[in-house]
């Protein structure tokens, strides 16, 4: 076997990808990379998170207290789960605008099932199935119906919100269940159960994204659907699969949401939609598809949660939160233009 690696080309084989969230290969020395704006773009979410932590911690020393860290991690769980789903979709060059509405619908379905059956497991299954169903619908509209992702998921966004209002009659359903409550209050150390669930999802997603044929096909479909198809990759099926994943994860998000709120509300969760896209952008995932990571969007979700939490802690009005999220996202998007 001949190896084409030379020492000048950096670390051979697997060691290279451990360094970059994109699974790419490092060629320059670490110092040279610090001067490279592309490096900062790729790591925007991590750098941003560190900067935020430093700023908020120096402004208020309770920011990094055990209680607040636990609260932040728990609060980030839903966004992490949604962002992971969104990452798969965006990597194929699509976008899922319906994630938050589908989560709302699944939450309402969860609430109603629990109210009528008092069966937590059944309610969870129904929530996941509800998310799955909308995901499959999105996937079929995009892959078979050849409808632009933007329009298709805008349609299901509205449909899911409407369906949630219809089946709930516009009223919230209180869900009181001790096991469900533990999900958002219990945990191991600072790690709440909901955060642990989100972390497990992220780890599985990372393995799927970088270590399976499916993950490679997702990247290839986003990179060049035509080239992928020419090698026999079934790009239609890949698209169907990523929207299905996003839907299923929206269903999981619904369970976490109900656990957190203690009720299933048909209210639109538009902030979750914007933040899920924002986390992906912050995570350095290419919006045209073909490049990305799971670590990046997860860090992006943590950053956005820390931002909201820190502003609240500092007593900044709630009204400033959407504004600050918007600014952060636009900055990240600007920075991502410098990505290689």
């Amino acid at each position, binding site marked *: 076997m001949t190896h*084409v690696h030379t020492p000048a080309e950096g670390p*051979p084989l697997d060691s290279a990808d451990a360094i970059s969230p994109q699974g790419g290969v490092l060629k320059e020395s670490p110092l040279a990379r610090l001067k490279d704006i592309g490096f900062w773009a790729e790591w925007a979410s991590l750098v941003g998170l560190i900067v935020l932590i430093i700023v908020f911690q120096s402004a208020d020393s309770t920011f990094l207290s055990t209680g607040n860290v636990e609260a932040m991690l728990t609060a980030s769980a839903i966004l992490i789960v949604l962002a992971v789903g969104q990452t798969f979709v965006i990597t194929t060059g699509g976008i899922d605008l319906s994630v938050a509405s589908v989560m709302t619908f699944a939450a309402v379905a969860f609430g109603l099932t629990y109210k009528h059956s008092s069966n937590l497991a059944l309610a969870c299954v129904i929530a996941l199935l509800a998310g799955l169903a909308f995901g499959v619908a999105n996937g079929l509209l995009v892959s078979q119906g050849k409808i632009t992702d933007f329009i298709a998921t805008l349609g299901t966004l509205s449909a899911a919100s409407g369906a949630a209002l219809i089946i709930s009659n516009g009223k919230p359903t209180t869900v009181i269940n001790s096991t469900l409550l533990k999900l958002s209050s219990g945990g191991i150390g600072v790690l709440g159960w909901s955060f642990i669930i989100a972390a497990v999802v992220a780890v599985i997603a990372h393995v799927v994204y970088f270590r399976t044929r499916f993950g490679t096909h997702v*990247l290839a479909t986003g*990179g060049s659907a*035509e080239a992928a198809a*020419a090698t026999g990759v079934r790009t239609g099926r890949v698209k169907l699969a990523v929207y299905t994943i996003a839907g299923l994860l929206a269903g999981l998000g619904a369970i976490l949401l109900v656990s957190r709120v203690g009720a299933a509300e048909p209210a639109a969760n538009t902030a979750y939609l914007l933040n899920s896209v924002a986390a992906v952008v912050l995570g350095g995932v290419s919006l045209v598809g073909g490049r990305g990571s799971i670590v990046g969007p997860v860090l992006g979700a943590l950053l956005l949660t820390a931002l909201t939490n820190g502003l609240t802690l500092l007593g900044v009005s709630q009204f400033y939160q959407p504004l600050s999220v918007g600014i952060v996202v636009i900055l990240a998007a600007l920075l991502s233009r410098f990505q290689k």
Partner: protein
Amino acid sequence: MTIDSTATPRTATDLLRVEDVSLSFGPVRALRDVSLTLRRGEITALVGDNGAGKSTLVRCVSGIHRPNSGVITFDDNVIHFHTPDDARNAGIETVHQNLALVEDLTVWQNLFLNREKVYGKRPFALLNRRAMKRDAAQMVSTLAVNVPAVTSRVRRLSGGQRQAVAICRAASFSSKLVIMDEPTAALGVQETAKVEQLIRRLRNDGHAVLLISHNFEQVLRLSDQVWVMRAGRCVGGRRTTETTGEEIVGLITGTIAA
């Protein structure tokens, strides 16, 4: 007997038979009743002016397009490829004119795209990246003069290096037929020589090769059989040993009738 007409006699040595294949894109009739044959163990060239329909024919054979009418027989079976995967499974590998590499993926990922090596059982199979990188390095080293590291992204490669990667991929999987649509169009002198060497080696190893090229010297140098297309039709075929560059040019331009 020799084949010197557009007629398509059925011979046991035929690997691919295209019979009366037509394909239109809306008003554009890209292929009109195209018939040609391709023998086992031979290099067959397909020539014609720009827009003659060569790439379209290639895409029909490799499962990207489905002809509106006509029959394609490969290895004695009538083929109905629904996807390029069907064609690859049947033993047809193609280097497309537009290369068909995914720029954001690395060289090794492209070489093994949709042919990934895995360990473990589906659906829990994980990529065997180490094996793929190792084999990719070997695949590339047989061809390229200036070997790109297999872990570099294709986006960073020069046009010629990309072409080399695409050719490597087509030549590396045990195929019965390797189709190359203008494989040396972007290559330097040395790389062209390497590719020609590789094409000969493929033939010597028993593969059939369908070569599309605008370089008549190359066609005369390499091929055993030449087919000529003009404006969506296959206007004639010649054994390479029995023809000349002038005759082929005449067929292409239409000054010589088949």
